[in-house]
């Protein structure tokens, strides 16, 4: 018989999620999703600077999906693994302009706060991935 004091799973250093959402393309909901992402990062003891980067990254992803999508619902996933807060999102688009200056500004911000990011058109679907680097828990 196993020791009841032992956890039945291997506790991961810092994992949370994935949290997957399907939401309307509604600007008023962006702050709620930003708060969710911030809470995920805070619950796993990310630094204030890391939480700020996560808030910025999720906001830019949602911004691009809302502004460059067709107005149909957005699909968003957020997952914190030990050294990365991974965000991905997608929505339908009708007239996606890859060279739009607003998108360029968005990408400038994503490039600053993410170790990796991409904005791609797959058929009629706009897909955005943004990975925010986190310091490993055993580095701190």
């Amino acid at each position, binding site marked *: 018989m196993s020791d009841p004091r032992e956890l039945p799973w291997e506790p991961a250093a810092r994992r949370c999620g994935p949290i997957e959402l399907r939401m309307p393309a509604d*600007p*008023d909901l*962006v*702050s709620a999703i*930003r708060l969710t992402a911030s809470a995920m990062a805070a619950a796993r003891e990310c630094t204030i600077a890391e939480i*700020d980067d996560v*808030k*910025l990254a999720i*906001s*830019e992803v*949602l*911004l691009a999906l*809302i*502004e460059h999508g067709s107005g149909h619902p957005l699909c968003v996933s957020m997952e914190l693994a030990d050294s990365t807060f991974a965000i991905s999102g997608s929505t339908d688009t009708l007239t996606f302009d890859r060279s739009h200056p*607003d998108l360029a*500004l*968005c990408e*400038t*911000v994503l490039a*600053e706060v993410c170790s990796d990011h991409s904005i791609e058109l797959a058929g009629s679907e706009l897909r955005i991935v943004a990975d925010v680097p986190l310091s490993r828990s055993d580095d701190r």
Partner: protein
Amino acid sequence: MTDQRGGPLSVDVDTSGALVVHGDIDIAGGPTLDTYVKRSDNRRPIVLDLDDVDFIDSSGLRTLLTATRRAGERGTVVRLRNVGTTVRRMLEITGTADQFEIEE
């Protein structure tokens, strides 16, 4: 005067005419701020007090840049007051700090 419509951002106008911004300048809050900027006195600098702004994204920055363009068309400027680390970082990331007068 406080406007709570259109999301979490609200704006007060202080006795000097400065727009005191409360909340996040993002895709939801930017349009509210833009409404106040449009109502501003045509001849005077547009002063934005950002002491109570905890977050800004690139859409919020675009709102500020639009304010600068409007002010320029009137022959005046946008002056940013009480710029915190979050807004300052956004200006630095995007290289747009020189688009504004920033009170130190």
